[in-house]
Structure formats: structure tokens, C-alpha cells
């Protein structure tokens, strides 16, 4: 399938806590977007998604999300929805941003 317009990461919600998580290169999960495994390759993206979906006892609703690569070499969200998911609600300081 080849290279895609945007690199992609796999994200989901944690089954127990419900919070936003990202798949790492080791097949585990992180709360930090910048630590997510990134791929430019569509086949690799599907492989990562399959790794996530094979863990229904830990996660809910895995999907691929577009990312860009920041100056620090780490992935950053493209869409505003994904950006909010990295931080939590914007109405006041609470949720993920307050727990970092």
C-alpha cells in the first residue's frame, strides 16, 4: 500500500480507567502521545492496529490517527480532536493535563 500522506499512530481508551492511550513500539501502551509508535507505511499501520485490537482485555476502540513529526522527532496530533485527547478538557485545567 505504501507511504501515506500523514504518519499514523494507534490510539484507544484504557478499558479500566477509560483514559486515552497510545500504542508503543513494543506493543504496550503509553499515556503520552509523543511516545506512540509512528509509521509512514500503510501496511505497517494496519499491523500496529491489529496488535492493538488483539488486546480487548485491556483497551477499547483502537483506531489509527494522523500525526506529524515535531522538531523533537516525536509524533504530534494533526486534528484538533486528537490534540484535545492529549490534554483533556479545555474549559478549565483538569483531566490529563493536570495529571502529567
Amino acid at each position, binding site marked *: 500500500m505504501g507511504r501515506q500522506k500523514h504518519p499514523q499512530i494507534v490510539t484507544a*481508551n484504557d*478499558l*479500566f*480507567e*477509560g*483514559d*486515552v492511550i497510545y500504542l508503543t513500539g513494543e506493543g504496550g501502551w503509553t499515556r503520552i502521545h509523543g511516545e506512540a509508535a509512528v509509521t509512514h507505511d500503510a501496511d505497517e499501520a494496519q499491523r500496529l492496529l491489529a496488535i492493538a485490537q488483539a488486546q*480487548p*482485555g485491556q483497551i*477499547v*476502540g483502537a483506531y489509527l490517527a494522523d500525526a506529524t513529526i515535531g522538531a523533537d522527532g516525536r509524533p504530534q496530533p*494533526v*486534528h*484538533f*480532536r486528537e490534540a*484535545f*485527547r492529549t490534554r*483533556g*478538557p*479545555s*474549559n*478549565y485545567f*483538569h*483531566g*490529563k493535563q493536570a495529571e502529567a
Partner: protein
Amino acid sequence: MYAYDDFDADFVRARVADFRKQVERRIDGSLTEDEFKPLRLMNGLYLQLHAYMLRVAIPYGTLNSRQMRQLAMIAERWDKGYGHFTTRQNIQFNWPKLKDVPDILDALADVEMHAIQTSGNCIRNVTADHFAGAAADEIEDPRPTAELLRQWSTDHPEFQFLPRKFKIAITGSPNDRAVTKAHDIGLRMVRNQAGEPGYEVIVGGGLGRTPMIGKTVRDFVPKADLLPYLEAILRVYNLAGRRDNKYKARIKILVHETGTEDITAMIEEAFAEQKALFQAPPADLVARIEAAFAPPDFDNTQSLAFDRAQADDPVFRSFVETNVTEHRNPAYGIVSVSLKPVGGTPGDASAEQMRVLADLAERYGHDELRVSHEQNIILPHVRKADIPAVHAALKEAGLATANIGLLSDIIACPGMDYCALATARSIPIAQEIATHFDALKLEREIGPLKIKISGCINACGHHHVGHIGILGLDKAGVENYQITLGGDGTETATIGERTGPGFAADDLIPAIEAIIDTYLDLRHTADETFLDAYRRLGAAPFKDAIYDDRHDSARAA
């Protein structure tokens, strides 16, 4: 207030016990998410953007102090210390952990509350006029009917898998504060020629992607016939409602596609059958429910304290102007407590504030609280002589915002700050509008104005019936806001008209200001409200104001 009998209590406890086992089985891997999801939704548990969310029903918006304190306890023990009151008289906890939810539901059952049928394609929490039993304009308190509907609709075997969700609202007053015309079924109490109270039945209203004003299918249904009549409506819908397309599955589409005359005939035919078969609820049950909603023992002692406080204290006077409504008993007032402090999140209350409200209800309010669909809390029965003391306590708790019915009393859905379905944020828009106009000190000059904001087309923020409605959308990866004008959720219900292309978030506040400036310029007198002026003038001057040269960027959006 209605108190659970053994049947109610056992039913709710049994559901909690079932759900506890279902959660255990999900956690140990016996249930997949696909299997578990419908079970958790039946118990009000959603998975949202950042966390699980538990939606708890507050039937017909009525609470006592013990229940409010329990909500505060739940907010502190299992959540982040606050709750969010919604446009359907529910409270939502935004941060529960999956394993804690059965304990939360047990804590709710301890105070006769539950989260049953707050999701799913069933009959949802029945909502009512938040001034029920207190309003001066009321024919009768509609809550005995609402409670009967709750009992009838809870776990009703025929109506657990409807084509889509089903919402019923009820009012006992000619002035509709329950948005009955925008519900699947709206019930408005009326009197027949003999002077007996019964219900006008309105069917097929709704907001969402296809907003519709409900159609009256019967001008008068006697109280005794109401349940079989509603059962007839639900039966027609259950059989004929579309199941092929989720977006066309609400009863409003069936009513629209069938036509009012034909759907009425279908309902009447089903009713004729149903009435003969229907087993009326036992008379002692009906009597028990009615007794539970008997008016409190009013204290009619006259006092000058209320008038004196108004004369002496301009802050109190201003609070009374907006937040106190005439009560059926002249010695009393209905106090609306705004959950819309300038810059705050509409509908949020901290655990501490919930306890203050519970204390005030207990001490001054015959132990009653209400949640309004406009996301405020009501103390429905406060002796006028006690209102100054209530106001002082509210001030102390940051709950004395005097803005009910004004510009900053904004309905906003949770939007993309919490909701997984949202396409844009709503709360920050409400915060910006309130903060901007607070700085201009124009709110009282502007007068009655309802701004309602939804963060997606599902319209939980009722934007279609806002005098100014705002709908947040995702336009090519950027938040974009459409404006509708002239909406009305009362007995003169109207769906607002879209002005035209949407606005980027930064251009939205100037556009709202241009709309309000146009109103202030063109109104005949200070008494002509925004809605009246809009109805007289039409959309043209407002459109001219927001799409003129200053807002060229909006055209491109």
C-alpha cells in the same frame, strides 16, 4: 416526594447486582466490548473522549437534600469533585473508573436513584417543567403523571428495543418550560369543557439533524386514558418506525413521512384496541403516587423582610428580578440558582456547592430541589421572608449569579471537551460569550435572551430553539460555528433559521455582538425582546450585520 416501595427498591438493587457481575465478566475477559457495550449503556455508562461517563437520571428533575448530598459524595469519592447537570434533567459524572461503577450505582440505590434507561433505544428519563408543583400558572402538578410514566416505561418489555431513543416531556402549565414540542412525545396539561384536567398529546417533535416541531395528535386525553394512549403511540412507532437508517429512525421522521392525519388515525386505531386490553394501574398505587406529590405544608406568615431587603440591597433586588419567579402561594417564591457563573462551565456544580444547595433546600425549601433543562438548580418552595438568607448563602458559595433568562444563562452541551460524538467545542464558546458581554455590562440592557450551543448536529444543546443558536462543526479540521436565529422552545415553539455560512471561533464573538447590536439599534422599545424584534424584522438586518465587510472572512469559511 415519591418514595420507592419494595418493588422499586428490589428492582433497582437487582439491576445493580446484574451490572456488577457484567463488569466483572468484562474485566476478566468473559465478555467482549461488543457484548458489554449494550449492557453498560442500559445502565447509563458511556465511554467518552477522555474517560467513562455515568449518566444518572433525575426523574422529572426532582431531588431531595439527601439525594443531592449523595451526588456530592459520589462526585468526591469516585469522580473529580463535580457533576454536570444536563439538558435532560440528568447528572453526568465525567470521570468514573469502570470497576467503581457498580459501587456508584449501589450508592445511588441507597437514595432511590439509578442510571437505568439513560441511554439506549428505550423510553428515557421523563422530564418535566422544573417549576412543577410551584408555578403560579399551573393547572396541576404534572409529576404524579411523570412518576406513573416512569414506572410504566421502566423495563417495559415491549419498548426496550425501539427503533431509536424516545424522550417524553410533560408540563402542567400553559407556559411551556419543558420544551414539550421538541420531544418524541410532549404532554401539556389542559382542561376540557367540563373543566377536568387531561393532556394535549404532541408527537414527533425533536431536534438533532432533522429538527421538527411536534404535531398535536389529540387535543385532550383524559388522565385515565393516558397510559393506553401512549402505549398506542409507542406500538405504532415500534412497528412502523424505520430501522433501516439510524438517522431516520426517530418518531419525528415517521410522523413527517406518514403525515399527521394518517399517523393520528393509526394511533387512534391502536388506542381503541389497547384501551380495551389495558389493565389500569391499581387505584391504591395511583393514590399513593398522588399523595407523594401533595404540596408541602406552606407557612403563610406574612413578613416584610423580602420587600425590605429589596429596598435596601441593590444586589439582592437584581437577583430577585431575574432569579425569583412567582409561586402559587403568594408568601413564597421560586428561586432559580444559576449554574452559569461568568466564565464557568454551564451546568457544572462542585460537591461543595451541591451540599450548600442540599442544606438550603432542607432548611428553607421544604427539602426539594429541581434540575432544569436549562442546566440550573431550582429551590421551588422558599418562603419570601427566607429568600434574603438564601441569597446570602448562595453568594458565599459562588452560586448567586443573577442571570436567569439573560444572555449569559447559556445552555451548552459538553461538546468536544468531553463528548466522543462532538465535532467542536461548546463550553469555551459559552465561556467567551459570557465573559465578553460581562465586560460590556450590557446584559440587563439586552434583556431576555436565550443562547443555546451544541457541539454537534445531535443538538443536545438545543441550538435549534435558542433565540440565538450556535452549532459547532468540524470544517476541514477546524472548529466552525453556524448561527441560527429566532428559535423558541416554549409554547410558541419555532426552529431557528440558519443565517448562512459558519464562523471560525475567533470570528464568532464579533458576529454575536453584531447580532445583538443590530437588535439594540432596531428594537422599538426596551420592552421589545430579542425574539419579538426578530419576528418583526426577519433575518435580513441580522444577516447584513454579520456578513458585511467586517466579516468577509466568514463568507469564505
